[in-house]
């Protein structure tokens, strides 16, 4: 990060400056999208007909409601994603310290114990054929 920002001096370097830069880029991104939509709205003619306001569904007239009750099995997949996200989040701080002096083997075993417990859940899901797509 330093070489890129070096030419900009004190304002945009350092912790807060770097994140201010991120915020500025985020604002530019939002402004580009919102501006394009806004200019579009100003330029285009608006002559809605009931036919035009129909939801586009592959060129065929839509059937039924837009809302369909989904199966409960998808919930387990989402929950598996949550478990893996929490899992991954703890790997980051662990990866920065486990090789440092004063941690070593104990920290390595602790993390694999953590992963082992979660792996038990995956094995259970696999044995109960939750992961099979039938």
């Amino acid at each position, binding site marked *: 990060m330093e070489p890129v920002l070096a030419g900009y001096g004190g304002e945009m370097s*350092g*912790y*807060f400056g770097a*994140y201010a830069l991120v915020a500025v880029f985020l604002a530019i991104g939002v402004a580009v999208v919102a501006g394009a939509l806004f200019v579009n709205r100003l330029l285009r003619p608006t002559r809605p007909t009931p036919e035009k306001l129909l939801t586009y569904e592959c060129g065929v007239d839509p059937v039924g*409601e*837009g*809302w369909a*009750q*989904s*199966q*409960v*099995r*998808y*919930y*387990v997949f*989402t*929950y*598996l*994603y*949550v*478990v893996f*996200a*929490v*899992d*991954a*989040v*703890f790997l*980051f*701080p*662990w*990866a*920065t*310290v*486990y090789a*440092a002096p004063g*941690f070593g083997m104990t*920290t390595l075993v*602790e993390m694999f*114990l*953590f*992963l*082992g*417990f*979660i792996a*038990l*859940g995956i094995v*259970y*899901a696999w044995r*109960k054929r*939750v992961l099979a797509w039938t």
Partner: protein
Amino acid sequence: MAEVPSYLSPTGQEIVFLLLGAVAVGAALLVVTTRQLVHAALWLVVCFGALAGCYLVLTAEFVAWVQVLIYVGAVVALLLFGLMLTRAPIGRSADLDSGNRPVAALVALATAALLVTVVIDGFRTAYADLTPGRGAAKELGSSIFRNWVLPFEALSVLLLAALIGAIVLSRTDIRGR
């Protein structure tokens, strides 16, 4: 202990923190007052995002990105899937209020009062300088694996229990004896 600067000349960070806090509170109020269920989940994204911004301003860099990954990403996806399982309509629903509104407001206010009292009583006018790098992954890692290993391992058991519970609840062919 660092020297306490005046409250009358707030720094840029303090102003940004206050604005983000206002966004978080406003979005949280919209979550509970909106009449459209899916909009409530989307306002929750705004609320969690503003909270992540607060963490960033407080130099808790790693926690901020965890907030984005876990809460904005995973928990809101879980909530949306939870909504899709119900028969809730996609538009406005008139029957979202359960009649517990006064009790809920009372509990929320009491919880807020308790938390604010504890924080004010615990810290009073204590002042901590914002030092970048104190909330980095390395600092957190050494704190977790030196002092907080047991809660960390207990968390894996909690995740395992919730995962197995979700599997058992979502299947009709797994029964107790």
